[in-house]
């Protein structure tokens, strides 16, 4: 597809379970971001991947959160032992690298509800 694709679009999970959220970036985009957005709030940065560089994990809120990006393409955000405060929309964005072509393209997000 032409855009950033995220799956699932909605996820309801029980407290304490692990969840995996997937992001398929736009082909050829080397930068990939994960953000979290609680209801009515702003964007909370989680993690940033850029090419083969070590990811910037400075935004991950706890060690229950981790993310991978395989082959410089698809990314998975994993939340272990989910808590109710993890409920939010998780947004993925990708961007081409370098120069002025750094516009970020967002996916539709995954709405996570922890019950």
């Amino acid at each position, binding site marked *: 597809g032409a855009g950033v694709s995220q799956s699932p679009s909605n996820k309801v999970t029980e407290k304490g379970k692990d969840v995996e959220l997937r992001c398929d970036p736009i082909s050829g985009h080397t*930068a990939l971001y994960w953000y979290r957005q609680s209801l009515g709030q*702003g964007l909370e940065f989680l993690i*940033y991947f*850029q090419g083969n560089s070590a990811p910037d994990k400075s935004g991950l809120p706890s060690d229950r959160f981790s993310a991978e990006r395989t082959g410089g393409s698809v990314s998975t955000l994993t939340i272990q032992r989910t808590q109710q405060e993890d409920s939010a929309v998780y*947004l993925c964005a990708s961007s081409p690298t370098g120069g002025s072509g*750094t516009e*970020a393209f*967002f996916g539709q997000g995954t709405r996570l509800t922890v019950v």
Partner: protein
Amino acid sequence: GQQVMQIPQYQHVQEGEDFTTYCNSSTTLSNIQWYKQRPGGHPVFLIQLVKSGEVKKQKRLTFQFGEAKKNSSLHITATQTTDVGTYFCAGITQGGSEKLVFGKGMKLTVNP
């Protein structure tokens, strides 16, 4: 690390009014971008400014990049209900990594 601050966080205006919102960075930026997120949607790119003092217009929206490349403003003329949403600015630190850093956003509501 780099911080991007937006003021105000919330703005409520009467339809037809003008208003301005601001974005300030703790570092000098190579460029600044603005995004709009409609209620229930995801952020969508509006515009990018690169040059010091640059001004760009999109219909009723005027974007400006400060001379020092550390701040930006968005001015909306004759606000309409279609302008409702959250506006984010995002910047890349000059000489730093290419990571886009977003502000917390400015949520606009319009009274018809």
